[in-house]
């Protein structure tokens, strides 16, 4: 019987013209990361009370550096990487070229947005951090730049759904190839999730920064920010999950076990990522305790698919380790290919993510959050999620993606391995510092160098933060050395390489309820219903809002 899926269509290569655009997207991503990491060094050393920011050209304040660090790492780097990488995975899985003008539009929007926001930040007119809570008022170009960066993700969503639609017309009745399904699901989730930030930025903050409206509503904008601000962490994470699910097993010599379970996991992220934002606002006035509790429970729900992922991915790795001769309970782990930097980076990323996940669960734990909210604990937590689980996964992917996009061989495999181990040790040391300091009240987002208050126990916490951050910086710079050397000096590969993705041990079902998993329409409707339940009561009670705050430029 003919296999009804196109899991691995033979011989499909992305056209060179499109490969080039995606290459520039990935370059933009890592260019942004390089600026972010350099600024990060200044941030980490601040906690160790070492001031290097004064040597940064044009840097007026610590908070300007912190704004740049957050925006380029958490928004430009992640968006540019997701846009390029998931466009590639979708196109490859569907064996269809993409819409070239739209692909250029994505790149153009990202570059324009980055330049506009970058101008405002570089000139010190937008030191409002990457959360840009009003009534701190930034230059309009900052908000317009952010809006364009969000628009670039919407254009990518149109690109992916367009490709899927074309594929469906020609493949009626067939299951969507897994890698395309999980890529598109990521964008379905984020498109819905980004509406909050879009309404706040386009509807409220841009007109306010241009003087068209006089007042902002800080609680409303904050709520809209976190409507998008929690699911954004899954938008950072899911491209890494795409790699963990369908690429890492192949790289480890294993097989992904279940097709259906993988789809269920991504559907769960679509459903549960968004109605959880109030767990970032547990300590806010103006929001009822009942709504906070509801979001807390749903946040616990979204922990579940991550635990399924932990199982599935470890299982796939174990299959690989045993095929390579591993035996016993743990020996298979040592038998993995520890010489492959693409794989090693992502295994280390998974290890930091276990700690990132556990600390995240603590953040979500309702009144327990009061012990750590806005302390250094929080950056300690998210440097083990986005700052390493995601970043190291993207670096690991780059070890094959940059050679693939350039048709060149990787230069400096040994150095690549060292960069990841150094970064890994660095992030653990830094997180240890931030987390212990945070538990003892050390605040986040604060220029500790100049603060008139301190506690003796913050000394060690600060030193570890500075030391760990320095190691992360060194690891990052080694990574960029490998990248640049590969781009400049890599040997041309003769035959075109394919991207490394896997089949599943259990192929997709062709009958039964599992076929329904592919109907995005129903899942999107269900997600909207959940959003209405989670945010409807608050909005019904709160709107038309409390627009009484004039803008402040306290920077």
């Amino acid at each position, binding site marked *: 019987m003919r296999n009804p899926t196109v899991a691995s269509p033979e011989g499909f290569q992305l056209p060179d013209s499109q490969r080039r655009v995606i290459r520039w997207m990935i370059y933009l991503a890592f260019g942004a990361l390089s600026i972010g990491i350099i600024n990060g060094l200044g941030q980490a050393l601040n906690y160790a009370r070492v001031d290097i920011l004064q040597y940064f050209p044009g840097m007026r*304040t610590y*908070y300007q550096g912190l704004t740049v660090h957050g925006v380029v790492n958490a928004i430009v780097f992640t968006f540019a990487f997701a846009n390029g990488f998931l466009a590639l995975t979708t196109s490859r899985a569907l064996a269809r070229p993409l819409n070239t003008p739209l692909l250029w539009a994505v790149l153009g929007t990202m570059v324009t947005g980055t330049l506009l926001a970058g101008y405002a930040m570089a000139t010190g007119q937008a*030191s409002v*951090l990457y959360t840009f*809570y009003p*009534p*701190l008022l930034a230059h309009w170009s900052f908000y317009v730049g952010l809006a364009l960066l969000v628009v670039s993700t919407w254009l990518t969503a149109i690109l992916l759904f367009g490709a899927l639609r074309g594929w469906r017309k020609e493949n009626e009745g067939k299951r969507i190839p897994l890698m395309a399904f999980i890529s598109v699901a990521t964008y379905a989730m984020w498109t819905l999730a980004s509406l909050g930030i879009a309404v706040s930025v386009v509807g409220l903050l841009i007109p306010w920064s241009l003087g068209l409206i006089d007042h902002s509503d*800080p609680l409303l904008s*904050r709520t809209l920010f976190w409507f998008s601000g929690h699911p954004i962490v899954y938008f950072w994470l899911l491209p890494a999950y795409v790699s963990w699910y369908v690429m890492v097993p192949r790289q480890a010599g294993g097989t992904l*076990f*279940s097709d*259906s379970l993988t789809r*269920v996991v991504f559907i769960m992220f679509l459903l549960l990522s968004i109605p959880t934002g109030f767990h970032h*606002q*547990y*300590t*806010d*006035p*103006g929001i009822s*305790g009942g709504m*906070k*509790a509801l979001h807390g*429970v749903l946040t*616990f729900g979204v*922990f*579940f698919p991550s*635990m*399924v992922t932990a*199982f599935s991915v470890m*299982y796939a790795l174990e299959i690989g380790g045993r095929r390579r001769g591993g035996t016993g309970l743990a020996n298979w782990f040592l038998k993995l290919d520890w010489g492959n930097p693409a794989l090693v980076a992502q295994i280390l990323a998974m290890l930091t993510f276990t700690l990132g996940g556990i600390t995240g669960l603590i953040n979500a*734990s*309702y*009144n*327990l*959050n*009061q*012990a750590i*909210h*806005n*302390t250094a604990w929080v950056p300690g937590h998210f440097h083990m999620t986005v700052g390493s689980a995601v970043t190291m996964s993207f670096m690991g992917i780059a070890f094959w993606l940059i050679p693939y996009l350039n048709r060149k061989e990787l230069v400096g495999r040994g150095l690549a391995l060292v960069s990841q181990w150094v970064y890994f040790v660095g992030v653990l040391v830094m997180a240890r510092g931030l987390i212990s300091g945070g538990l003892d*009240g050390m*605040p986040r*987002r*604060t*220029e500790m160098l*100049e*603060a*008139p*208050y301190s*506690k003796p126990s913050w000394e060690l916490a600060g030193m570890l933060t500075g030391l760990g951050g320095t190691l992360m910086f060194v690891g990052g710079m080694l990574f960029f050395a490998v990248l640049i050397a590969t781009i400049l000096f890599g040997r041309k590969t003769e035959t075109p390489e394919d991207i490394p993705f896997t089949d599943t041990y*259990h192929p997709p*079902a062709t009958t039964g309820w*599992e076929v329904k998993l592919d109907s995005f329409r129903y899942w999107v409707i269900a997600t909207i219903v959940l959003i209405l339940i989670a945010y409807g009561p608050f909005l019904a009670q709160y709107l038309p809002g*409390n627009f*009484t*705050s*004039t803008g*402040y430029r*306290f*920077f």
Partner: protein
Amino acid sequence: MTVERIEKIFLGLTAAMLLVFLGALFYSAFGMGMHLPDRAGEILPSEVRNTPPFDDPGVREVGDNQYEVVLIGAAWSFTPREIRVPAGAEVTFIATTTDVIHGVHVEGTRVNFMLIPGQIAKVTSTFREPGEHLMICHEYCGAGHHLMYGRVIVE
């Protein structure tokens, strides 16, 4: 969908763990009274200093072993900067901001809440042990954010 037995066990344990955690949280909230800030009214940011009770910030005894702290955050200081309360008293913070978002964290305790323009924050807690705590503004509020702090002295 094929799910292996070992995976079913793993996921069952995960679900059980999450339910136990949730149970503990609900007990601590409703059984032990550790609540999060709730809705406590709105206020015009430009009129904070003319609106009771914020026209007279400070600490006052309002009942038998009950104290009220009326607190204002403004870039970049708290009013009052120093709060003295007896150990074991029930202390209710009533707080707001006149300008941008600020935060209040009395380190070493679970008094941890945001000051959002237009909103009144109300938080009740009991400091059991005598001692001194830093009260830190823990939300970025501009170039002098790190200068904004105070003290809570439990006597």
